[in-house]
């Protein structure tokens, strides 16, 4: 009964959105988010991710429990708010998803290239998203603090800044066209300024997120992928250096921001 009522209130919140939105689309969404707090569908992906983490899978029939996400083998809590970071074993700066794929290849024997080529939401990519949701959830409430001590981490930040401002395509857009200033919108959608800390739970600190509008769980790689689609750019490779670099740029800028991931979005 209570659930039904909450559902109805949620729907009303949605239909009210366009009316209220001009003044406070963010407030209305925050309200809607609050209503769904006990039932963010992201929870399902988080639970699936946790099961996948512990399950023996792949050609090597092993779990991911020895995966090193940067804080030592098996340490999940706190890893998310320090990614992307440099990993000695791969000699690369990696974000959460590319690191998960490295672990799936090394520990479970999956083919990393094959996973990278798989479209979002299918086969092992769907599992990567669920795993990323689980790992992110373990850092909920913690503050972003990406390491910048390794030279490669500092280099990636600098590359990421250049990627962020790179203008191209038929519309002349860069990430900065929409995310370089305070208080801007596209239609009714508020745009965070990602050149600095945009605040707790905003921008980099909100993804992975469950998207109500299409009923999908979106990882950061997919978030970036769709940004580039709307930027009218060609297709960014999963885990490509440009995506890791721009994530490093946003993550370092978000230093001190509280992570609310996995969050819920319109």
């Amino acid at each position, binding site marked *: 009964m209570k659930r039904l009522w909450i559902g109805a209130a949620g729907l009303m919140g949605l239909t009210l959105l366009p009316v209220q939105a001009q003044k406070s689309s963010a407030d209305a969404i925050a309200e809607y988010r609050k209503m769904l707090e006990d039932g963010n569908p992201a929870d399902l992906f988080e639970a699936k991710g946790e099961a996948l983490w512990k399950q023996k899978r792949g050609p090597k029939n092993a779990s991911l429990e020895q995966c090193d996400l940067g804080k030592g083998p098996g340490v999940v809590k706190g890893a998310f708010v320090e990614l992307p970071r440099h990993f000695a074993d791969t000699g690369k700066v990696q974000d959460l998803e590319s690191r998960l794929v490295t672990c799936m290849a090394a520990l479970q024997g999956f083919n990393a290239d094959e996973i990278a080529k798989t479209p979002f939401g299918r086969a092992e990519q769907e599992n990567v998203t669920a795993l990323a949701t689980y790992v992110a959830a373990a850092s909920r409430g913690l503050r972003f603090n990406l390491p910048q001590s390794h030279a490669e981490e500092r*280099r990636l930040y600098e590359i990421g800044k*250049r990627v962020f401002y790179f*203008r191209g395509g*038929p519309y*002349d857009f860069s990430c900065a066209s929409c995310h370089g200033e305070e208080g801007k919108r*596209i239609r*009714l959608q508020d745009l965070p300024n990602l050149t600095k800390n945009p605040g707790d739970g905003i921008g980099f600190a909100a993804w992975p997120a469950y998207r109500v509008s299409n009923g999908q769980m979106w990882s950061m790689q997919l978030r970036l992928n769709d940004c580039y689609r*709307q930027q009218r750019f*060609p297709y960014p490779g999963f885990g490509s250096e440009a995506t890791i670099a721009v994530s490093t740029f946003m993550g370092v800028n978000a230093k001190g921001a509280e992570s609310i991931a996995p969050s819920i979005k319109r």
Partner: protein
Amino acid sequence: MQSKRWMKSIATVTLAAALAACASLPSSAELDRQAQATMKASFRDQGIAKVDRLNQDLGQQACSVPSAPSPELVKRIEAESLATIKWPAGGRYFGDWREGEKLAQNGRGMTWTDASAAPKDNGASCYNCHQIDQKEISFGTIGPSLWNYGKLRGVKDVTDPAALPIVQYTWGKLWNSKAYAACSNMPRFGHMGLLDEEQLRHVMALLLDPKSPVNQ
């Protein structure tokens, strides 16, 4: 002699260590080069969105930094952009504001999920960034409000020669926005083949026709 050589080698070692610390981050020019290589290596063709979209022209390259380019470069980009503007055949600047409103509402086109890059399949995306007709409350704020665009500029009759400067400026801005602001956020609708002349005429009418709801 001995100690001098020893001192020298210490100095060399110290210098090398200092250099290593500094050299941990490449020069700004080297990072620029690396970032270009990163972009080239990170994207692939998908549908109509090919990797040649990353080949930057002068303006795109100059405006890929947080700060404005040098005044000389700004002048050059604006002059070269102005020279690209194709004025409408027969001086026909105006179409139907109703069609213009449809185009302004339509934010589609040119992504890798769009089947065709032909202008007829593209919207003008105006409301994404601008307020236009006040009745539409779902508008973006990246660009300035265009409510009463013609009225505020005193356009009572679009055929009046006194209106010609603002008519031409508006056409030029739609054709190639960079002619008037080198690093404008606005796409170059005519220059990049996003909209054809007929579509631009409709958008012109939406903005300048005294009968358009925008000018009430």
